[in-house]
């Protein structure tokens, strides 16, 4: 018999260690996975929504960017399309919510020919400056909300609504 021949005793020890190891691993793996699960969960990109607007195409004239996200309302899931007015302000990209602060209509850029360079709400002639600040003497009582912005592969991403940062 050569020395490296495996004895019956050794063979049994190896087999039991191996099988026991697998069994222990089988029990421990799910436990470990559950324990570290909160760390592995993705944050869903902080609810940023990718739009089809190229960053390079944004100028200092506000353009309307539509974006769609899924909204869960009880058990009912629906796709909601919202829009933002997006423009370049220096090096920064500004995305303003088009929802009028008066009663919630949708405002348009230069919607009134008499007031160039302003957002206009057709419902009650509310006006906002380019940075979203409401024009005194028109119905709206506050500035337009802003969206958080981010970039991904050259495309614009919009996040959640925040209060206007210009005023």
């Amino acid at each position, binding site marked *: 018999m050569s020395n490296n021949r495996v004895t019956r005793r050794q063979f049994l020890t190896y087999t039991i260690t191996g099988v026991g190891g697998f069994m222990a691993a089988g029990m421990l793996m799910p436990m470990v996975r559950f324990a570290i699960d909160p760390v592995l969960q993705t944050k869903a990109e902080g609810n940023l929504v990718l739009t089809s607007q190229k960053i390079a195409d944004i100028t200092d004239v506000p353009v309307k960017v*539509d974006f*769609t996200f899924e909204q869960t309302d009880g058990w009912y899931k629906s*796709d909601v*399309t919202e829009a933002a007015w997006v423009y370049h302000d220096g090096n920064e990209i500004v995305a303003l919510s088009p929802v*009028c602060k*008066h*009663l*919630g*209509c*949708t405002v348009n850029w230069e919607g009134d020919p008499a007031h160039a360079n302003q957002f206009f*709400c*057709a*419902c*009650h002639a509310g006006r906002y400056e380019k940075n979203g600040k409401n024009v005194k003497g028109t*119905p709206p009582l506050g500035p337009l909300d802003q969206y958080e912005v981010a970039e991904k592969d050259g495309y614009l991403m919009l996040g959640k609504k925040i209060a206007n940062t210009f005023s």
Partner: protein
Amino acid sequence: MNFNVKDIEQFQTQKQFIDTAIVPLMQLNLSDEGMKQSSSAVEYLMTLTMFIEQQFRGRVMLMPPFSYTDRTKNELLPMQLQEELHSTGFKSVIFITCDHFWSKKNENLNVLWLPAIPLESMDKTVKQRILEDQLKQIIPVLTEAWV
């Protein structure tokens, strides 16, 4: 504004601003041949009026659709509905429909007739563009009612 509790509460405090009621007039065709086309028109009208509401929600109240079948069609009913809406405080009442029936008799009713566009076969971006185009046609009707 929609006809739900949250919006109605706001409407009651802001009555002077919300002065237009929009009523979709919907024809329900319950025959075997007409049902599909009728549902397509209803889908289009619902989507469009919801889009109008979204754009002008501060001045417009979208009423639940007024629907009728061939046998319950009665041209006097919208007239009476209009009167009641006027007395609730709506200065203008605009009916929107895809049914030709109303386009002929609009002396006393402000009826906007639109051809039904089958939205069900379109993808999202085309749908959005069509709705925006349709809205552009409706804006003059609204601004005319508002001056």
